[in-house]
């Protein structure tokens, strides 16, 4: 298990290696990356803020839920904070399991759950403005 909110560049292979066990036949990895447009705007970069201690605790709680629900062997989650450029990974979720079905399902559920409840926020910056993206709503501040 590895749960981390960090300003360092995320390394997918390191997380895969961390969750893989000898009884694992599959490792599912989700990598959320910064794309160059949103709602028709050309995005320059994103800035992520988080309540680090709580976000890491939330990761642990939802991983425990997944471990109780699916036959999986391990879970790792990492989120990056600070300024992220186009193409950089903001979120990694890796799940190992004896078989792929449980790994895929648990990984998908963990990503959805994390986005619902984790205290992490992103600010979108484009030419001439910026705004914090808050759930469905958008609050203009630039």
């Amino acid at each position, binding site marked *: 298990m590895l749960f981390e909110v960090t300003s360092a560049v995320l390394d997918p292979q390191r997380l895969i290696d961390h969750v893989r066990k000898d009884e694992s036949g599959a490792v599912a990895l989700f990598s959320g990356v910064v794309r160059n447009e949103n709602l028709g705007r050309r995005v320059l970069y994103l800035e992520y803020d*988080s309540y680090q201690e709580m976000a890491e605790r939330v990761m642990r709680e939802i991983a425990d839920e997944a471990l109780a629900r699916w036959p999986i062997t391990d879970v790792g989650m990492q989120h990056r904070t600070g300024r992220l450029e186009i193409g950089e990974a903001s979120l990694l979720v890796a799940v190992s399991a004896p078989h792929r079905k449980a790994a895929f399902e648990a990984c998908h559920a963990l990503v959805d759950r994390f986005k619902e409840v984790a*205290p992490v926020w992103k600010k979108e910056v484009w030419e001439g403005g910026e705004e914090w993206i808050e*759930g469905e709503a958008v609050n203009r501040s630039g």
Partner: protein
Amino acid sequence: MKARVRLFARLSELAGTREAEVEVGEGLTAGEVYRALCGRYPALSGLNGSIRYAVNGEYAEPGHPVGEGDEVALIPPVSGGSHAV
């Protein structure tokens, strides 16, 4: 008799700080901590409906009690994970 308050994202920009202390005296609720902060940072006012609270790192109702040494976080709507997927 103070509690520590943490502010994030848009709320920290509106207040111009990421941390504050509030006097809790005989005890306040999380919602009352927010209202006390609005007096100090008027830009935070009017956000009552969109803020969630955490007390000592756990989501809590606005009526959750806050005492000395507690940490209260004002949580704007979350937007974590990958970019608007």
